[in-house]
């Protein structure tokens, strides 16, 4: 479980997240929605400390994964990011072969046995629902794949190092409807093994894929509930106005 208590985040003097409190359950899909600039991506990137690479940022409060504060000084950020994988809006495969894209993280992590690497590459590609499309050309360049395939390859790459949590920042926004549907189906399949947090601008996508939805606005968490409730009977007027397209 990801437990967030009174979490604030600052870009320099500018506070972009205000007192966020929520509990993200294991092996479910939690969607973060809200208008541009509402802080949802910043929040997502706070979970595996991706914001650390931006100078002048700082987080306050608690984000705990299975009881361990990710902002504690003792935390090894590299191992944190191995446990909390990330998939970005724009697919970013390395300019290497399909196989190497997935094997890379394993080698960095110290795996040397070729057979183990082969097996893990295959398992990861299968889990990302792309194995059948690439199994005969594992040594071809990843850059020759279509956008949707590249995105699934990036998901396979994230899965290879066996994370518990997968953060997805608008993973389908650059894809056509068919590729989007494949990613959505994949998210639905993956949740039986992974905890998934997904940022999306597409409210329908949040409704389709997620179990829980958090609605952010102006850096605050307005409402957080099971997705069905958010989309059928939201409690807050702001949420209702946003999801019915009355502003945003």
């Amino acid at each position, binding site marked *: 479980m990801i437990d967030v208590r009174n979490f604030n985040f600052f870009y320099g003097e500018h506070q972009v997240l205000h007192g966020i409190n929520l509990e993200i359950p294991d092996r479910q899909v939690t969607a973060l929605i809200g208008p541009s600039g509402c802080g949802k991506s910043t929040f997502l990137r706070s979970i595996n400390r991706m914001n650390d690479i931006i100078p002048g940022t700082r987080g306050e409060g608690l984000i705990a994964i299975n009881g361990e504060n990710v902002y504690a000084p003792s935390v090894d950020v590299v191992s944190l990011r191995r446990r909390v994988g990330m998939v970005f809006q724009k697919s970013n495969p390395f300019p290497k072969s399909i196989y190497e894209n997935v094997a890379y993280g394993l080698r960095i992590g110290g795996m040397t046995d070729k057979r183990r690497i082969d097996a893990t590459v295959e398992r990861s590609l299968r889990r990302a629902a792309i194995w059948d499309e690439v199994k005969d050309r594992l040594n071809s360049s990843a850059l020759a794949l279509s956008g949707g395939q590249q995105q699934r390859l990036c998901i396979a790459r994230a899965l290879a190092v066996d994370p518990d949590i997968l953060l997805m920042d608008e993973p389908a926004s650059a894809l056509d409807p068919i590729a989007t*549907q494949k990613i*959505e*189906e994949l998210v*639905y399949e993956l949740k039986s093994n992974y905890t998934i947090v997904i940022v999306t601008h597409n409210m329908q996508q949040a*409704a*389709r894929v997620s179990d829980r939805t958090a609605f952010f606005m102006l850096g605050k968490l307005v409402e957080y509930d099971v997705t*069905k409730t958010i*989309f*059928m009977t939201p409690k807050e007027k702001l949420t209702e106005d946003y999801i019915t397209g009355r502003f945003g």
Partner: protein
Amino acid sequence: MRHFDREIEHLKQLLLRMGAMVEDAINESIRALLERDTDAAQRVLDSDNAIDQMELEIDQHTITLIAMMQPAAVDLRFVAAAMKITPELERVADLAVDVCERAIELNREPPLKPLLDIPRLARIAQDMVRQSLDAFVRRDAALAREVIARDDEVDLLTEQSFRELLTYMLEDSRNISRAIRLTFIGKYFERMADGATNICEMVVYLAEGKVIKHQHESD
């Protein structure tokens, strides 16, 4: 299978389960009437709540499907058809309850006459309801149109049965209460057939996207 297809399949299964319950209710109501079986009638009265609950469950499921899955094209027509078919089924079950209530009243008195038209009417109505559900499951517009065509036969039988019962009423005023109850029963079965017709109109809409309600197709 897509996650969405599984949801649609689940909705279909719920509707079929409700359909089976409604068919049972019609069957028992016919038995209650023809075999003067008051226990059967009571069973139908007792089972009605389960059918009502089923309607609520399907309503909830269809609304959720629309909110979460934004169905389009044939999927949208399926969900819309499900929303319109469910209350028809519930109404048919209520009519079976009405038949049973009149049957219980009739069973307290000696039979007015041997029943001829009403059993035929009842069997046709029952058949139409069953076939309308088959047509829905198979998305079979041809079968749906066949069912709709049988509605004229039902109307004729209802009329015929009414005329005959009227003669009993004219003959002896002590027949009136039983004859009126039988007239009602004829009407209840005729309305069940109307329900089947409405379901079939939704099946044509589902299969072909064509609205045939309130218009003659030959026009």
